[in-house]
């Protein structure tokens, strides 16, 4: 009994870690720009596909390119990191196309919502065009050398779930340390607090903004690669669902709060894991039902700051 519960909780924490990554991706951009980058879900998909490709996985693109793949295959950790970095670069491209033109002319924030969604639509459909709509499972050799499962306190956990949890924890800790301790991390926080004052203090706020996008995309890409290896890539739309869940987590934790995003992600993953198997069809609604309840009871999120309405 206890073993099953432990197993459930660890699985929940693992998927919660991925939700936290996505929510942190939103948070980084939101804290600097005050808007939500709706292309993040598509970047998540991109990260998954890039990891798959870099490992030498073959694609067929709806039968257009049967068995085509890169001539080399990187080991999983390397492929994952490289894919995350490339996704970060793609995120910079999203910033350049969807955010910069509107920011330059001080357009309504509402428009950025549309353009970032448009960027996501382009990305997902490009993936669909180039890689096909079919799903891909990572090669079984992806995690060669790791045992199938580990036994923890009597509970059998798939080792890929442990890996997931470990990578998410490492990414979250690295990001927090960077934000708190490093010069550039603090500069980013300063820009998030007050861009004008930060500029007066000699911080290049545009560079910080690009850095936020780069990191945000990299986090989403990391999430995509991890989900790809632990479950599979069911199609280019894989990231949209995670993007939406990340949004729920973002609000749950409080917009713009880093610890909130982490706590919210874990909470959401655990809550979903506790949904009994018979009701698994309703699991996807749980995140949004929680989100709904949180918005109504505490619109600033669990750990969010109250926004003062300026008159």
């Amino acid at each position, binding site marked *: 009994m206890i073993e099953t519960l432990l197993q459930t909780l660890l699985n929940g924490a693992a998927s919660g870690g991925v939700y936290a990554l996505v929510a942190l991706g939103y948070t980084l951009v939101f804290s600097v720009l005050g*808007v*939500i980058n*709706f292309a993040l879900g598509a970047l998540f998909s991109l990260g998954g596909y890039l990891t798959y490709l870099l490992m030498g996985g073959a694609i067929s693109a709806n039968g257009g390119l049967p068995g085509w793949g890169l001539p080399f295959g990187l080991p999983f950790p390397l492929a994952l990191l490289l894919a995350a970095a490339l996704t970060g670069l793609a995120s910079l491209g999203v910033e350049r*196309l*969807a955010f910069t*033109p*509107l920011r330059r*002319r001080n*357009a*309504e924030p*509402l*428009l950025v*919502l*549309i*353009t970032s*969604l*448009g*960027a*996501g*639509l*382009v*990305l*997902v*459909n*490009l993936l*669909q*065009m180039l890689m096909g709509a079919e799903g891909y499972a990572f090669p079984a050799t992806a995690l060669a050398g790791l045992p199938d499962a580990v036994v923890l306190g009597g509970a059998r956990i798939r080792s890929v779930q442990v890996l997931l949890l470990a990578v998410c924890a490492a990414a979250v800790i690295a990001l927090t340390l960077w934000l708190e301790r490093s010069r550039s991390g603090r500069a980013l926080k300063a820009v998030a607090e007050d861009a004008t004052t930060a500029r007066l203090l000699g911080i290049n706020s545009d560079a910080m903004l690009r850095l936020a996008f780069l990191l945000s995309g990299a986090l989403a890409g990391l999430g995509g690669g991890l989900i790809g290896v632990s479950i599979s890539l069911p199609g280019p739309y894989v990231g*949209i669902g995670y993007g*939406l869940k990340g*949004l*729920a987590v973002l*609000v749950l934790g409080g*917009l713009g709060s880093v610890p909130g995003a982490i706590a919210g992600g874990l909470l959401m993953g655990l809550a979903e894991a506790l949904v009994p198997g018979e009701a698994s*069809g*309703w699991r*996807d*609604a749980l995140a*949004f*039902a929680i*989100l*709904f309840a949180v*918005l*109504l009871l505490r*619109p600033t999120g669990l750990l969010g700051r109250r926004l003062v*309405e300026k*008159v």
Partner: protein
Amino acid sequence: MIDNGLLVQMLIGALLGVSVYLPLAAGQLSLATPAFYAVGGTLAALLSTTWPALGAGADGSFPLASFLLELLLGGLLAGALALLVGRLVLRLQGIYLAIATIALVEIVRVAILNLPFTGGAIGIFGIPQPFPTAAGYLLPALGLLALAGWVCQRLEVMPLGRAMAAIRNDELAARCMGIDTTRVKLTAFVLSAVLAGSTGALAAHFLNTWNARQGSFDTAVTMLAFVILGGSRSWLGPVLGGLLLTALPELLRPVGDVRLVLFGLVILLGPSVFPQGLITPGLLERLGRLGERAEREPQT
């Protein structure tokens, strides 16, 4: 290239665009339209396939009166749901409201997918047809659009519409002027839901099948794009946006798989090119002046 079927789809797009526009006219960014559209469509699909009193024929025919009744019921059910949900969510502002309404859309989608009587992932199919051809749907779709347009046009001069515009410009100031902002926002939200519900009922018959995919996050995005690219300052904007953007993917069909990428590019780059949408207040003013001149100058 544009056949009657596509024309009906375009009109449905225009109707949904107006439904997203209505709360926005009161300054509320709500993405709930797909949820209400799904509710109206599911109701019509269920009623017409399971309730013999409506008179669905064995050959798949359906009486016109029952069809019109379903449009009404779809609108009413969606409106009632909006009244219930609106009281809760309209306390939220800006992006919080948008996210809450996305949550509503997802909850409705998962519910339709999992309820025992809505047909699961396959959905409800073989929905009876009140008209023998797609052309038959043109008239009710046009009628619904004319009604919606008339309401929007009337709103511009009615106290309710003026109050909506005031809230859009400055909610705090509107409240100080003594406007019951909660009630005005709720009314706009319910109007939007009624329109979406009726449109869903019409679409369910037109499409012949109905499933949970009809109201998803993707559709919410597309509908918002109708309003933003068409222009959000007049109801004509979402109508134009809905017509154009529904036709675009179909007209691009010859280019194959690239079409959805191109569609995404339009949404990505459109707002930078037309930040106010295609139909801007300036354009409307110029059209209005043209109209006045035509009235003043006697026809020769």
